């Protein structure tokens, strides 16, 4: 059924190919003192509102029943993906509870395309034996990479930064301009007066030195 659906939508870059359909690797629990359970796992492409598969998304359905086929309600099922990270590991995907029909459903989003090795595990409950089932699905596409939504008023915000930068630059230019202009103008305006003053001071010093020399002449004679 799923393969048929995939074939229908292949031309529209379909996400799911494959063997998701292969229902169920089910196992029987045989421990003494507990009721045997069976677990079946299927991975079906998730359909959008128009009935087209959503790229990279699978719905994992785990069906938990007793040995006699009676569904087990409200039992926790954990889902895993087998990954190869320094050796094969089960990476926890999520958890769901079974409903009245014994089905626990979980939406699985595959980050990478390719073969997805999936597992469902019933950890057991008082009187019920733990159980595990696996399945695999071949995906042509993973989920689309995350794209940040455009920042609201983003253009205004970036324009604001540029405007602020221009404003700050203008203020610095004015401040430094005022300082430089003041320093330059004051120095230039005062330079002749300072020179005159320096000359006067220098003349005064010379005459003072001359006076001192005169006083220091031996015998009190006035020298010229």
């Amino acid at each position: 059924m799923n393969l048929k659906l995939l074939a229908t939508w292949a031309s529209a870059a379909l996400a799911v190919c494959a063997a998701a359909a292969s229902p169920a690797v089910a196992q029987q629990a045989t421990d003494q003192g507990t009721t045997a359970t069976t677990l079946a796992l299927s991975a079906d492409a998730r359909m959008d509102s128009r009935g087209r598969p959503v790229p990279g998304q699978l719905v994992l359905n785990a069906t938990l029943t007793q040995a006699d086929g009676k569904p087990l309600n409200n039992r926790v099922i954990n889902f895993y993906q087998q990954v190869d990270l320094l050796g094969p590991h089960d990476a926890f995907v999520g958890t769901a509870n079974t409903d009245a029909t014994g089905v626990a459903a979980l939406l699985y989003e595959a980050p990478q395309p390719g073969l997805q090795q999936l597992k469902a595990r019933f950890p057991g409950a008082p009187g019920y034996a733990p159980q595990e089932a696996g399945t695999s699905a071949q995906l042509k596409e993973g989920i689309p990479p995350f794209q940040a939504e455009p920042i609201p008023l983003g253009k205004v915000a970036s324009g604001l930064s540029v405007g602020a930068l221009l404003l700050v630059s203008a203020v610095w230019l004015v401040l430094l301009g005022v300082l430089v202009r003041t320093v330059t103008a004051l120095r230039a305006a005062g330079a002749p007066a300072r020179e005159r003053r320096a000359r006067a001071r220098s003349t005064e010093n010379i005459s003072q030195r001359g006076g001192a020399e005169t006083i220091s002449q031996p015998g009190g004679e006035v020298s010229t």
Partner: protein
Amino acid sequence: MLKPEFPSSDAVTAAALRPLAPSGRRFWALAAALAAVVAAGGVAYVYQLFSGLGVAGYSDHGFWGIYEANLVAFIGVSYGGALVSAILRLTQARWRAPITRLSEAMAVFSLLAGMLFAVIHLGRPERIWRLVASPQISSPLVWDFVAVMTYLLATVIFLYLPLIPDIALLRDRFERAGGLRFKLYRALALNWADLPRQHQVLHASVSVIAVIIIPLAVIVHSVLSWAFAVTGRPGWDSTIFAPYFVVAALYSGVATVIIVVAAFRWAYRLHDYIGLKQLRYLGYLMLALDLLYLYFTFTELLTEGYVMNAEVVPVLESMLVGQYAPYFWLFILGGGIVPLLLVCLPKTRGVPGIVVAAILVVAGMWLKRLLIVVPTVAHPLIAGAWGSFQPTWVSMSITLGAAAAIPLLLMLFFKLFPVMAIYEMGEIAEEARQDALRLPVTAINQEGLPS
């Protein structure tokens, strides 16, 4: 006829240069005490640098605390100082002349102390370089850095330009003595020779800077408020935050100007020049800002409290009736109502009453900044992660050290430069003389201003 409020230029010069005379034991004892507090703050900072911010009371549950409150408080005080001076200059308020120098110097030194807290808050202070090397321009913190640096440049220019004629006076006085001090004055005096052209240039430049510094201070403190407001945290995410911060800065700034002016008035016996008039006018300004700040506080609490968004409730509860309530109501009483009464009531509107009111305002506003920072940080959106911030001896020592640095720097600065604007006071006195003689002031300007 000379009005008594404008004494002779020789008397003004003598009074303004009093701090430059050899200081007595009391001066050096006070300087040594302040230096010791600064040094203790330095030691605490080094300890924090090696031990981590945990020793200052910071944790995952209280990642902003006293340092951020100090940053806002100290920089706010600086804005207040600069704005007072700029506004009084532009409005040609004659009574401003004896106090502008003090408020401009206070603006620079409190800004420097406030800027320190941006670095002190960083566990890895060398990372401040990354603000310059790889800025993220959408971050308000980057713009905060840019704004504060711009404001620092403006305040330094605003302090320096009106000082030039007074520095020239010192240059002439120290010419015979020579030495390093004379060289410093000569370099900074820029050939000032009291010429009409120089007066004209200086007037124009000071006016331009005074005009720029007002919007600049408003913008800069608004940017500082946005570092809080745009985080989306309950208690901070408020549209009123920018004007709220600006008014707070002015309020605490005017109060600090009152304290500084009163302290120097008392220490250097400047009563003849800085009278009750100056302090009372500053007190009135503080009173108006007090009312405005209380109004803003009420408005913010009313809107938040009426809407009662779920995430705001714990912050409001903790501040109004919970853990931080005693501090909040202490601020309302001590930082708002009592200063208001002290300035309002004629009996307490003397110098001591105004100074006490100003001290209460400065302390109350520092507490308020702490109340802005801490309750919000302690109540993050994830309820289970609530925490608190408790100041430790390390953070308190650093805070006191920075606070002590401001008067210390002022004392040392005025050992080098006149404490009052001699040139401006002479100019204003001359204007008053001309007014008294009913001569148009423009006639003086055409002839060149008096020496």
